[in-house]
């Protein structure tokens, strides 16, 4: 019951080395290959978006389960909670974009002479962009911190009032997140192609976040169980996580296709240009995106037994994570870097740096507290439920 994860020196060293090597290789590849600055900034944005998505997906997972008074997730709630501890670091990394605005966002140039963008300048202007960024992160960090605080209080006392307060924070988070996840995706991704817009874009980004977060949680549970922790997470919990990954992968495809079909059918040049660019210049990735995010989880997790095998599930989850990296690549690179885009050492090194840093922060947060919330009113249900 008081099981606690120890962040061993070996794991810590591996992650520190991975992050440092990633950073050094990034710097080296910038000096050796001299990529266009737009490609460098697009990579920063891509990795920020991917790992913020994983962190926010964890917060959404917690909030939605608490609002629904779910019991089953109680035994594993520390894991999504640990994911959210990356948000303050993500804020610092996102603020770095201040130096790359001109390279990433065409609308941030001062001499536009473009009536379409000038008409959008009430929303798309530099001061408001950063004010919004601060607001988003402030809301996300404060509300997830609130949920975390109440859970910590539950740890020792088990008083139901902490559970009720946690529910209030979860509700506030869901409302705030529901709005900001759309607006932040407009700000950070959709405004790269500032002439283009899609009304379903916020949902599409949001569901990508949630799927990648689920996949990351599954991989993390696989890692922790291999290291001998979390014996209380039984095959029933694994099965439920597998169902969620399966279902939301299909939902991601649904939204992807909803966006594609309408633009393809509508055949309006200012809208179709978005997909023309992606299908002609990034054809392999365009179809790989669908293959990794839909075909593999759909057929790989369709059978009941396969959802219950943690090794297999973690493998599929790993594929889905790569798939969502490619998904963000599809959203960001063609617009931001265009003909300078490519996948080379820079992309791999930068992702290695972010992954190392992310895991370091998350595992450190996970090790700071016991893995189970001992007096959570739903813990007993979670230990005995059957899926």
């Amino acid at each position, binding site marked *: 019951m008081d099981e606690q994860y120890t962040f061993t020196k070996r794991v810590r060293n591996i992650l520190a080395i991975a992050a440092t090597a990633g950073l050094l290789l990034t710097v080296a590849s910038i000096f050796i290959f001299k990529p266009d600055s737009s490609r460098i900034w697009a990579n920063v944005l891509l990795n920020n978006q991917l790992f913020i998505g994983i962190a926010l997906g964890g917060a959404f997972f917690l909030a939605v389960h608490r609002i629904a008074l779910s019991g089953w997730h109680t035994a594993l709630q520390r894991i999504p909670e640990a994911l959210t501890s990356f948000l303050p670091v993500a804020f610092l990394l996102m603020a770095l974009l201040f130096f790359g605005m001109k390279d990433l966002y065409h609308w941030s140039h001062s001499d536009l002479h473009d009536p379409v963008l000038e008409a959008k300048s009430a929303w798309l202007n530099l001061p408001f962009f950063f004010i919004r960024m601060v607001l988003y992160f402030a809301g996300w960090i404060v509300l997830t911190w609130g949920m975390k605080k109440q859970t910590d209080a539950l740890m020792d006392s088990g008083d139901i009032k902490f559970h009720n307060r946690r529910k209030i924070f979860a509700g506030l988070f869901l409302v705030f997140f529901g709005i900001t996840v759309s607006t932040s995706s407009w700000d950070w991704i959709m405004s790269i192609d500032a002439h283009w817009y899609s009304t379903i874009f916020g949902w599409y980004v949001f569901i990508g976040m949630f799927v990648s977060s689920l996949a990351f949680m599954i991989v993390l549970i696989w890692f922790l169980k291999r290291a001998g922790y979390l014996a209380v997470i039984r095959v029933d919990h694994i099965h439920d996580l597998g169902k969620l990954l399966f279902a939301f992968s299909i939902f991601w495809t649904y939204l992807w296709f909803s966006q*594609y079909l309408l633009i393809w059918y509508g*055949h309006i040049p200012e809208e179709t240009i978005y997909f023309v660019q992606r299908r002609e210049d990034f054809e392999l990735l365009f179809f790989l995106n669908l293959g990794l995010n839909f075909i593999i989880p759909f057929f790989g997790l369709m059978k009941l037994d396969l959802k219950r095998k943690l090794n297999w599930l973690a493998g599929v989850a790993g594929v889905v994570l790569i798939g969502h990296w490619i998904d963000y690549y599809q959203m960001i690179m063609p617009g931001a870097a265009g003909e300078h885009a490519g996948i080379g050492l820079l992309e791999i090194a930068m992702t290695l740096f972010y992954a190392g840093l992310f895991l370091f922060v998350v595992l450190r947060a996970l090790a700071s507290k016991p893995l189970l919330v001992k007096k959570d009113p739903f813990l007993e249900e979670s230990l005995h439920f059957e899926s």
Partner: protein
Amino acid sequence: MKNKKYITVVFDDEVPMLQAVHKIQESDQSIQDVLTPFPVHGLDKALKMKRTRIPVAGFICGAIGGLFGFLFQAWIFTVDYPLVFGGKPYLSVPSFIPVTFELTVLFTAVGVVSALFIRSRFIPRKKFEPIHDRITDDRFVILVDAAENEESTRSSLQSLLAGISNVEIV
């Protein structure tokens, strides 16, 4: 199944029913069937039932439906009645996807229900003879195989289930 003799044990809640199932499984009596108004968690495990093969039927029907839907549209729009819609080519895959999806779902749903009806011999005009009047309402029923001498089974069941609340042995 019909001419086999059984003893009906009726419960008004699923928790004592599950306890009784475990107790009967441990004794030398055997359970013929358990009837509940809603799915009870852990019951199929307690009865050591084999996994159903209905999902396999569902997958096959779905695959047939998907293929049929796609190929049918492809045939219509390229061979049978080619028409130009919105300047698209005749064989324009994205526009076939919604119908393909719907037909996959339709074939799966109809196929699964038919497979279930065929497998459990739910043929038209079959008469429904409820074992207990409230079986589809709020009662849980265990059917226990009766020996030649029904009374002996009944009395041994009575002593076996003595500790469980609200049991009615018919």
